């Protein structure tokens, strides 16, 4: 009897082991399905970035040194680039919040169907080429463009304003490109807020403004934060719009990296700038992943 039992137990452990190893083998096979995509991304995106980053620690003679970094932080030209990059990124982020938050809040108070239709006004620009939208702004903001001509015919200004080919133009264009990136996560979060809580606050005697600031606003913060971080990261490394609307007068980090390579072929300095940009972006990505979860950002 006991020997039969022992045999049975032996048999089942053996079975369990076989099943386990099969399961493991299957898990490996299944993970193997992910490999082509993962490898493509690793080889095309990450490998070259790491290789370039390592370049930044060598000087022109090929010795290990921090020369590239001391140079970019000591040169007035590069310092100016950092200042302008932060100035633009921060302004764009603040303007996006000021425009995006009221819009999302308003959309949230509308019936689902109406809000869904109005979201088309956000999604169409979002899916339209950045180049097309920058081109449109170049036309609108030019010296004899519609904005200047209507302001002049209204008598607001006598001389056309310099709107394109400078900092103002870059900021206006970038706000237009970045705004949907703030709206999408913020709106998703606001839609998920239980409005009964606001009603409860009102029922308990809170003023509408009090209910908004003390109940609704705090609950919308994760979405607002995700949007802010996203807009800020994308602005820090943005290339197309400032390159065209800045008219060469505005040099942000991305343009400086590009011109350092294509015009001066200085890979050391360019990669040092790249490392600084990468570190800034990584800190932001890490922060955002902790608060919101990177994958949730792009769900609709």
């Amino acid at each position: 009897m006991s020997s039969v039992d022992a045999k049975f137990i032996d048999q089942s452990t053996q079975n369990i082991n076989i099943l386990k190893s099969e399961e493991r083998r299957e898990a490996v096979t299944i993970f193997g399905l992910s490999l082509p995509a993962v490898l493509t991304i690793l080889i095309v995106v990450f490998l070259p970035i790491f290789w370039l980053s390592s370049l930044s620690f060598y000087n022109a003679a090929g010795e290990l040194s921090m020369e590239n970094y001391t140079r970019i932080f000591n040169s007035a030209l590069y310092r100016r680039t950092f200042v302008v990059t932060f100035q633009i990124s921060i302004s764009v982020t603040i303007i996006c919040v000021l425009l995006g938050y009221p819009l999302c809040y308003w959309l949230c108070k509308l019936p689902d169907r109406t809000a869904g239709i109005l979201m088309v006004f956000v999604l169409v620009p979002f899916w339209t080429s950045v180049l097309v939208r920058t081109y449109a702004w170049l036309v609108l903001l030019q010296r004899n463009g519609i904005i200047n001509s209507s302001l002049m015919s209204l008598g607001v200004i006598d001389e056309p304003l310099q709107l394109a080919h400078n900092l103002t133009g870059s900021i206006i264009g970038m706000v237009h490109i970045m705004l949907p990136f703030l709206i999408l996560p913020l709106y998703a979060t606001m839609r998920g807020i239980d409005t009964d809580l606001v009603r409860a606050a009102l029922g308990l005697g809170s003023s509408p403004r009090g209910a908004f600031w003390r109940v609704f606003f705090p609950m919308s913060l994760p979405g607002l934060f995700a949007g802010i971080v996203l807009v800020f990261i994308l602005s820090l490394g943005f290339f197309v719009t400032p390159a065209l609307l800045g008219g060469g007068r505005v040099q942000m980090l991305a343009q400086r990296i590009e011109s350092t390579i294509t015009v001066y072929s200085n890979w050391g300095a360019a990669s040092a700038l790249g490392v600084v940009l990468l570190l800034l972006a990584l800190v932001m990505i890490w922060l955002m992943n902790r608060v919101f979860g990177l994958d949730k950002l792009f769900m609709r």
Partner: protein
Amino acid sequence: MEQIEQRKIDGLWLTVVGIAVLFFLILPTLIVIPMSFSGASFLEFPPTSFSFRWYTAYFTSPEWMSATKTSLIAAIMTTVIATPLGSLCAYGLHCSTPQIRNTVQFLVIMPIVVPVILIAVGVFSLYAKVGLNYTLTGVVIAHTALALPFVIVTVMSGLRNYDFDQELAARSLGASRALALWTITVPQVKFSIQTGAFLAFITSLDEVVISMLVSGGDNATITRRMFNALRDQLDPTIAAISTCLIVVSVTVLVGVQLIGLRKNIDK
């Protein structure tokens, strides 16, 4: 009483701001459409005469046509490669342990938020070593890497909403894993895969920064040519090209929404 007044004013203020922001978003996006039909030889808005001259200029220019062809081929190839690779990756990740899933998922989504200029400069230097700069293959590989995260994210979210027991049931009834995946799971996440494919197409078609460094010569993409043209002058031909690009994007967006609508009705 005073509070109700206050509320009305707040509500009115909110509506005005909301509508103004929506117009701020949509008007500049669509303004190039009327501009592209202008008959004037310089850019003006509002246009004073109507003509198709800028479309004629676009469709009869060998340079613009060759660039359009390059971009379309690159976008189609990117879609054809990135959609199956990304979908398989999403399936693989969905079935692996949470630990692996979270790490790898973070890694593959990151290219969406890494500054494109860094990816572009990296790819440019990689291609310089293997001789892929200024080739169509190079553009397609780079665009595939850029499009994959979008496919992976959409398909993974589709898989999350799908009842995985159905595949297990099929397998317990004797279907092989591959057969169960193909006949049971794929049809149910078809909507996500299609959405992913659309995103891949648009990602490639609209991509500027990588194309600017990596494509060139006979293989210059349309975005590269547009960028260079815009640096010099405001050629109205670009209004016609932009209108075509908007039509493509909006068609794709409507396509995605329609599939979503049909899926909801089916349910």
